[in-house]
């Protein structure tokens, strides 16, 4: 297979979308938080918590959708903690975020280990299966690329559309964007800055947790330590790459997925000639290059990282 053949093969693009799915959830979650003016570096830990909680809920009998709900609630809970620390208390968003990552990760691991002390390989669940929609999934190319993905990939697509709609077409979205630009504007119109920000962080964190849950409930069927493996951090990078737009977030995630899928294929093709690490690096290098190209046009939420206190100037 030469490079071109790889790029036009349906299995390659199917892989790209699969790899992209958790990133889509994560980048949307991070985007919502940042649109409201709060950086959420808790994402890496929230991924782990979502992966652990969702999987464990299914294993305990909650069912797949029940598991997703549990994952989202878990993510939302950590989001709430981050929100309380950074919004009314106005503490450093960097530290709080990294603290949440530490807390969520270690709590998930500790809980897992304490609940299942004597397993040498974790119990497995029956994960989401590829949808196999009649007719559509038999279509050439798109059949495999899109219609044989699991329900979670479609949920991710739906979330992109939903988040786009909410942010651009609804009063709530306007309020969220405004609170990330100038909280005084929101306050002066009688809306609650705290309420909007806390709500956005909780919702965003719940989405992030779904990204984690994808790893244990769709991409794989069990929880492992360290399996998040930096995916959360990638999302933080992708948000900026996406200039805080949901559509571009989808694009960025799929692009990253494509880089990764391509990297694996190239490694097996020409792995003998080039050290494997060169391929592993590729997606990150490409992301930086892409960022440098789009950087000038990025439009920051102006109030990002700036806490706001009522009655203070």
């Amino acid at each position: 297979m030469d490079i071109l053949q790889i790029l036009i093969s349906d299995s390659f693009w199917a892989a790209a979308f699969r790899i992209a799915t958790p990133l889509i959830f994560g980048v949307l979650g991070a985007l919502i938080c940042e649109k409201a003016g709060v950086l959420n570096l808790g994402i890496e830990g929230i991924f782990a918590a979502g992966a652990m909680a969702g999987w464990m809920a299914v294993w305990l009998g909650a069912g797949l959708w029940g598991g997703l709900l549990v994952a989202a609630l878990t993510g939302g809970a950590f989001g709430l903690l981050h929100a309380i620390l950074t919004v009314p208390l106005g503490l450093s968003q960097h530290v709080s975020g990294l603290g949440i990552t530490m807390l969520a990760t270690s709590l998930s691991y500790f809980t897992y280990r304490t609940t299942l002390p004597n397993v040498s390989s974790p119990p497995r669940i029956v994960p989401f299966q590829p949808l196999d929609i009649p007719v559509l999934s038999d279509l050439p190319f798109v059949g495999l690329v899109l219609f044989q993905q699991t329900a979670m990939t479609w949920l991710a697509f739906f979330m992109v559309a939903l988040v786009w709609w909410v942010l651009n077409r609804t009063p709530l979205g306007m309020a969220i964007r405004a609170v990330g630009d100038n909280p005084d504007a929101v306050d002066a119109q009688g809306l609650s800055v705290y309420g909007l920000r806390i709500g956005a962080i909780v919702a965003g964190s719940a989405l992030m947790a779904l990204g984690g849950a994808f790893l244990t409930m769709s991409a794989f069927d069990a929880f492992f330590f360290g399996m998040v493996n930096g995916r959360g951090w990638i999302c933080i990078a992708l948000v900026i790459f996406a200039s805080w737009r949901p559509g571009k977030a989808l694009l960025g995630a799929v692009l990253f997925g494509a880089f990764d899928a391509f990297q694996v294929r190239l490694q097996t093709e020409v792995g003998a000639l080039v050290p494997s690490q060169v391929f592993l690096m590729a997606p990150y290098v490409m992301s930086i290059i892409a960022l440098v190209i789009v950087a000038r046009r990025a439009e920051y939420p102006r109030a990002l990282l700036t806490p706001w206190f009522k009655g203070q100037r």
Partner: protein
Amino acid sequence: MEGPDFSAPLPMTNNLVLSLKALSKRFGSVVANDAVSIDLHQGEVLSLLGENGAGKTTLMNMLFGHYMPDSGTVDVADMDGNMHPLTLGHPQAALEAGIGMVHQHFTLAENLSALDNILLGSESLLRWRQNHRAARHKIAGIIERTGLSAPLDEKVGNLSVGERQRVEILKALYHDARILVLDEPTAVLTPQEADTLFENIGAMTKDGLSVIFISHKLREVLAFSHRIAVLRHGRKVGEIATKDADEKSIARMMVGADTPVNPREDIAVGAPVLQLKSITVSGDSARNSLQDANLTVHANEVVGIAGVSGNGQSALASIVSGLAGPDHGEMLVDDVAITRFDPPNLLKSGIGRIPEDRHHDGVIGAMTVAENLIIERLNDPDVQKNGFLRQEIIREHAQELCRDYDVRGPGIDAQARLLSGGNIQKLILARVFECSPRLILANQPTRGLDLGAANEVARRLLEARKRGAGILLISEDLDEVLALSDRIVVIHDGQLIAAKDKDRASIGLMMAGEHT
């Protein structure tokens, strides 16, 4: 449009619509408001006066729910004219009671369109889509009634300050305000714009709107209000019907003493200190462009640049302060052509700058007053030795400057952000004048300052002129330009046109782009 007659007293039979009762507020040790009571009647325009820091904004912020009063109550009339106590501390409650507020500092989200800013908070957050059509219809009605228009679909970030000001007002009116609070609404408007605004507002008062407006410009206070209330050091020190007031009496009420008038001596101008020759800057918009601009400023001369903001002033200021270079043309300081446009180089060639946005470009709020005073001369051996700051000398120097320039505040070791706007401006003046610059670029030097502070700035500028400096004064306040300048140049659409004489009306027309 026919305005209301401010010379006639408002019939006292008009209903009371708002009553502030003994509102008090402290911030730490500062008593911002001390038992202030004010009444407002239907259709009345009340203007609230006071020096910087007198407590005007604080009072209005309590009315609107931004601040929670320490004590006191507010009663507001409902649609039927019955007075009810207002729930304090909640902007939402104030909005529902029909109070609209235009804040001293814009409260607009720059990433949203003007329309979305206006709509913000007016629709239920649970709606699945905005109702733009109904909103446009309603806004069109307001625009028709008031003559205030703004580009609704443009992002606020792309609007000029004047346009933003109008969006702010539309926003308040959109919420069906029956009581409108305007905190220094004209600080960034041209005289014509200000006049139009007040005429429009006057027209609305005939429909029952009641207005409180805060301003430092006595001219408009006298022309466009029924009643004047004055605050000093947080206390209400007087109330007077506008028809009984004049500039002098109000000033005395505000300051507690007569304010001196700045003497402006005639001096022969010296050699040119600044020459712009065919300078062209092609910015991303007219606001940031200059076309073939020629200008000379001599020693002992004040050249005033009059114009509506957004006509190229910022491009001009950027060039002269070295933040950007021109695309074409030449700039000479003392007959030496400038080749490198960067702030340190222009500082070295003797240009002192008073920036337009003093909080953003003028001071570093989180650093101390003393530190802000030396920020432009870090390489000076007086200030540093072997790369280390000479703290003792710096502090002494700061003490001295603060005394000389009357910079008042919590002291030289306090953060500069704690100073009031007027004192920040004095800090910048001290820093600039201390280096005895050949040329002073004074960009909107008195914007938002009270009478006393503005007088002080003017006095210092005239003093520098007398000493031999050339002064390039950029201001939207035509009265200020007229009062201080030896020559006036009008800026419009990136072009500089010399005014023939100091005639208010004809310059006003030139500012609007009509050549005579």
